């Protein structure tokens, strides 16, 4: 087990199975088809992301450097949370980007009954260590345990 300390963007505690990308996570490309056509597993639809394409994101600890792509990104995340089709948490190696931050904040302020902890600035070592299928526990103070 290894611990990493990050910064809390939106608070919460959760334990979930990791899915990992070292490339930027394109929120629109990843989620649009799954949300629109009712994919119960919320499989990643981004053809350009070879690490995540076709993998389920629902209830997973999504480990990523940052999000990229369309500025619908934040509202897509907000919709995913409203529809309870969101990852369990989002764990950023880098400082969070503006689109992911918007999605996390919109969900936190405007969606009742859904918590998606978001922690950023976990560092490059975090992404190098965490692998698909590992168990990730997020603590309220931004500590992330990986085993």
């Amino acid at each position, binding site marked *: 087990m290894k611990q990493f300390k990050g910064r809390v963007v939106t608070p919460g505690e959760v334990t979930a199975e990791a899915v990992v990308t070292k490339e930027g996570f394109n929120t629109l490309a990843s989620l649009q088809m799954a949300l629109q056509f009712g994919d119960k597993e919320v499989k990643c639809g981004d053809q350009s992301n070879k690490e995540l394409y076709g993998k389920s994101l629902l209830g997973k600890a999504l480990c990523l450097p940052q999000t990229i792509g369309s500025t619908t990104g*934040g509202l897509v995340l*907000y919709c995913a949370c*409203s529809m309870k089709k969101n990852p369990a948490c989002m764990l950023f190696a880098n400082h969070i*980007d503006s689109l992911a931050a*918007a*999605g996390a904040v919109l969900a936190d302020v405007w969606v009742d009954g859904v918590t998606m902890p978001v922690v950023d600035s976990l560092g490059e070592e975090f992404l190098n260590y965490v692998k698909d299928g590992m168990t990730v526990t997020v603590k309220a103070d931004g500590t992330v345990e990986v085993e």
Partner: protein
Amino acid sequence: MILTKEQQAILDGEKGETLAKVMKTLVMYGDAFEAEKLVPITSKYNHLVTSFGLKVMSPVYDLMQQLLDAGVTSGQKFSVDPRPLDKNVPENLLQNLVFNKFMYTKQSFYEDQLEKLGLMDQNAFTCTCYMDEVGNRPQKGDVLSWAESSAVVYANSVLGARCNRNSGIIDIMGSIVGYVPYFGLLTDEGRKATWVVKVQTTKKPEAQLLGSAIGMKVMEDVPYVIGLDRWIGDELNDSACAYLKDFGAATASNGAVGLYHIANLTPEAVELGESLIAEGAREYIIDDAELERVQNNYPVIWKDPNASPKLCFVGCPHLSLEQLKTWTENIEAELKKNGKKQVTVKTVFTAAPAVLAAFEKTEYAARLKATGVITSYICPLMYMNNPLCKKMPVITSSNKLRTYTSARYYTDAQILKTITGGKDQ
């Protein structure tokens, strides 16, 4: 974050619970970037990214309705991204059914909401709101609350306005309270380049390919591009602006670029030169081989990779008037060379309603129509955003459309050859 008395009063709920939640959203958004204050928006108009009445986006329309029910409206009029549907664009019976009965069932409802919130006019649906014909063109130094990645990167880089890569919903919240958090691309420090990109190609690089390469390399950083003025000149004329529009859209969609500087061309690069380059900036050299590597690495997810193209989209982001004219001339010449009268692949050119109206007043409109090309105001991405299109071999010269759909990227030259019946399809 330090708030003014007026801002604090809104946050404390003195102007109602809904406005307090809007302010809380902006404060938390700013806090994520250690923003110390909110600053006034100074542009005349806003631009929103959400233009589509997708059934699945109901949470967005519910939120908009909360705003309207609370009597909240945008302090600025705004333009918005393109409409998703147009009966001029080819669709089969099944597509028609899926589009109108399943996907975009909220379109009229949402457009009604937009009108109540502050839509500029019924034709203000385009991703290129900054075109002269559309009229939402901010001034240098203006602070914006825009979303739409291709418009934000254009406003920052080509027009010298100041705008972060705001998400949909955050965009309208800014113009509801009239402020945006001060961080990132609003600050002088945030506008410094942390990458130096040296263009060393032997010919003019394809705008959407060069942008893609840079976007994938620098992600959300700011690149300072040296050597591109050799190919597109040192004047922001129609041709250079169209190039930068397409280039920027690719940097923003294939990466997350919100601002680029082009040496000797874009306003801040002309004004401040290499003093815009931050200490320790990394270097990326782009030559012919690098562009070839990038293009060859794009996945082809057509069911049959060797299928003949059935549909072609050009105009993501929307085409300029000059681009429509140039394409008309090029298609006519190529058809003549190939002994054809009309395009051999169904082809749709997309542009802003106001640009199309201006185009219709020129002699080029009838000439383009004679080639068989269809013009439309739609968003090709919204058209292709369904499983039916996944089975269709669609080609495009838009790297943004390639990124979000199953469309295959061709360079402009490859598109021209293919749609005019050239032999190497």
